[in-house]
């Protein structure tokens, strides 16, 4: 289990480290993919209630665009 967690953390770190230095300047006219509404880097409205249910049924919260514990009698 511990090995699996370490592997997951290393994979995430590897993705981040490899992606950041490869940033390229993208002009406005080159943003036809980036500007697609499904590309938004945020939780969508239709997922909001699912997020609320997870907030009640799990101990972790926050950093996902939803609540971090206040405003309801949740965990």
């Amino acid at each position, binding site marked *: 289990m511990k090995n699996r967690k370490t592997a997951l953390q290393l994979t*995430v770190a590897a993705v981040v480290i490899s992606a*950041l230095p490869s940033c390229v300047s993208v002009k406005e006219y080159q943003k036809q993919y980036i500007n697609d509404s499904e590309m938004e880097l*945020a939780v969508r409205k239709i997922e909001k209630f699912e997020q609320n249910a997870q907030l009640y049924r799990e101990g972790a919260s*926050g*950093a996902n665009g939803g609540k971090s514990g*206040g405003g309801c009698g949740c965990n």
Partner: protein
Amino acid sequence: MRRISLSALVLFMGILCGFSQNSTTTEQDTAYKSKTLKIEEVNLVSSYYTQDGNNSAVTGGIGTEKLTDFSNTFDLKLSRYDHRNRKHNIGLEVGVDTYTSASSDMIEPNGIGRNGLVRTSASYQDVRVYPSVSWQVADENRGITFGANGSFSTEYDYTSKGAGLNFSKTSKDKSREFSAKLGAFLDTWKVIYPYELRPVGYGTGGHNADNVNYSPRNTFNLALTFAQIINQRLQMSFMVEPAYQQGLLATKYQRVYFNNGTAKPENLPDSRKKLPLSMRATYFAGDRVIIRSFYRFYVDDWGLKAHTLSLEPVVKLSPYFSVSPFYRFYAQNGIKYFAGYKQQTPTADFFTSDYDLSKLTSHSVGAGIRFVPRDGVMGIRHWNSVELRYSHYSRSTALTSDMVTVAMKFK
């Protein structure tokens, strides 16, 4: 519930009529930056949730967790430009949840209410209403946005007042953005005890009952986000959101049974520090597939560590229609105060048998469909899109749930 559905239908018809009033103005205003307040969009989201399990915290970690929840939100986004060409966005939202909970019925089973009538517990069936308002001003030339928001939530035993401030700065080439959000929730909880563990002379907590205490539960959080466009097809964001909670964090109507046969209401520390860190990435693969991914690591001072991973490929079957199957995995190790039914030791200071805080893994699978026709849904121009989403959730503690959500957008 039927009354809420009818209200939602009336609201829906009202929105359609409202848009039809100003359609010609919108056409003429394409290049003009409106100084008057105009409707940007209206969203209606409704969901039905049902769950079942056999580890209810109200009955000490055993017993039914059957619950249903019918949720609806309506939000309205308005905007206008001021004399300095800064865009002001105003958001108004109201949500109404109606739920029934079989375990809450065990707070006071077959209790005798006022006038000698047999009634169920305070929270057996309840309605939560939560309006909120937000305002933002965006200086598009400088890439700076400021905003503030306020919220209120009320249900039978819980009231919440929230406020927040936010700031964001976008780079000149609009390829990266930094944002900060500061939030506070000042909540008040009516302290309800299970009938057999209630102090002598303490009220039931039922409707019109007195002699009960109210306790605060306050939450303060700061969300910092950095978003970066990596290339023409990939963008990522990183978020950290430390939060601090203080006040009554235990749910006093949840029972804990000890290994010596005694029982007490749940007791947990009166403060909690949380630290979640997350990463989100969206990638446009080819011309038809978008991959949405999310990972979060969470740690708090109650000893809980958790990992969340989700993946959602969005397949565009046509420019107007997309299908998005998704999978979410979650794992947590459990807080140090948790033990199951009759497993707690009576000498412990803090104890809970709430399986939401136990060691668990969960899997969520489902799919969504999204329809954004060029000429509007069913030919109604302002009805921009309709979405339908289903999800099935299963937890290693044998809790399962299903949710169906419908979202409609009007522009």
